[in-house]
């Protein structure tokens, strides 16, 4: 069966990771930064699944399972932090939150 080489999946994953990094570095809205972090986590997941399927080893897919769990926990905590931030400062733009800036 003719199939896609592993490098294509890795290159796609690298491109998606870079797009996520651009989002984290340039956007100001904390919720969008949070979503960009999810995007980067997912691109790494794609790498793990690709290696797992190409090497015939299930460890990669188990790791993806754990990454999904940690991402769910991160979503709950991160959004609670954003809500608390909005309640105290009335903003979610990260450059307006400069209480700890030196």
């Amino acid at each position, binding site marked *: 069966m003719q199939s896609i080489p592993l490098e294509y999946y890795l290159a796609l994953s690298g491109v998606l990771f870079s797009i996520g990094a651009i989002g984290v570095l340039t956007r100001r809205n904390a919720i969008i930064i949070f979503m*960009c972090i999810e995007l980067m986590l997912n691109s790494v997941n794609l790498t793990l699944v690709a290696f797992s399927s190409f090497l015939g080893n299930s460890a990669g897919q188990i790791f993806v399972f754990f990454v999904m769990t940690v991402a769910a*926990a991160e979503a709950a905590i991160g959004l609670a932090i954003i*809500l608390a931030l909005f309640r105290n400062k009335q903003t979610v733009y990260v450059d307006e939150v400069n209480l700890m800036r030196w």
Partner: protein
Amino acid sequence: MSLVSGAFFVFAVCAVASALVMVTRKSPVASAVGLITHFFCLSGLYLTLQAQLLAALQILVYAGAIMVLVTFVIMLLNLGEEEKLAQKLNVRNIVGIVMAGLLGVQIIAFLIMQRGELTQLSPNAEVIGSVNELGRVLFTDYLFPFEAVSLLLLAAVVGSVVLAKRNLES
């Protein structure tokens, strides 16, 4: 071109396009919809890798649970639109785009230099992606991490309740 190759290219283009939509839109709701589309494309990519359980979990956990939470918070905060990325190209944004672009170029260049021999899926890829096999491995070899993750989830539940309370004294 086989069906799997065609599906890969369709889902790959769709995934990159929806990721770009997510990063560039100024409305948070548009970004969230882009990210949901992205998760569906990734689920399709997992299917081309014969990881059926993860494809289902991707939609259930990410597109279902996490993005519902994110859109809920967006609606709760009733956010206006951020200034668009292109309209405010200050030094910080340019440096950020250049750094992340360099990161991407580095990854691609590394891949081009390393020529791998892995051009076929492993013959037992279909077996290891199944619910049966992943469940067996998860509850035997990875039992301790599985239990540790349940503690992590408990800590996250307690932490989010504490953070979401208005004041702790009352």
